[in-house]
């Protein structure tokens, strides 16, 4: 069974600084997808970024980028130029094609003014 680990329960960063959230996963599959979701205080789940395992190039979305290390089964999220609106819970998730998600326990990020 697949598992997802996020070893940082809470993190904080100063506004405009850069922060990296870590995620590791365990799977014997070769084809899968990895996601980072953001859950602000409204509790709405918002997709931040997605990575296909067969792609070696790291995904980027504006200030958000990932460092995908397939051999190490690591999928970290880097947030550049942190903004107050980035304050949220961040969940790393694993999914095989068409199968259910497996979520990590989450990292609570606080951006400080």
């Amino acid at each position, binding site marked *: 069974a697949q598992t997802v680990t996020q070893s940082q329960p809470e993190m904080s960063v100063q506004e405009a600084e850069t922060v990296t959230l870590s995620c590791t996963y365990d799977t014997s599959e070769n084809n899968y*997808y990895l*996601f980072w979701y953001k859950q602000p205080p409204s*509790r*709405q*789940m918002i*997709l931040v970024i*997605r990575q*296909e395992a067969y792609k070696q190039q790291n995904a980027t979305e504006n200030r958000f980028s990932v460092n995908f290390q397939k051999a190490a089964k690591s999928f970290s999220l880097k947030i550049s130029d942190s903004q107050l609106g980035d304050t949220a*819970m961040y*969940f790393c998730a694993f*999914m095989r*094609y*068409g*199968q*259910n*998600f497996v*979520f*990590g*326990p*989450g990292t*609570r990020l606080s951006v400080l003014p």
Partner: protein
Amino acid sequence: SQTIHQWPATLVQPVGSPLSLECTVEGTSNPNLYWYRQAAGRGLQLLFYSVGIGQISSEVPQNLSASRPQDRQFILSSKKLLLSDSGFYLCAWNRDTEAFFGQGTRLTVV
């Protein structure tokens, strides 16, 4: 475009009362459907998922049940709520590589 509707947004129910939360999906067919529960400040716990009409898989034995009477409708139910059923419930669907979440229901059992 694909959308997902989940209601109600908030619900306060007495212990021992029944529960019915509904989730409907638009803009797709034959999606995988999910119910998650999230305790305050915690991660997402998968409760049920469904790959088709009438097909329900339960991940955690509990006081809740799920049904999928139509392709794009997923219902979470309980005959008698417990205090421990309080939490935030999220419906989600995925198909292939896309996934979408509902707005969530905050359930308080008093």
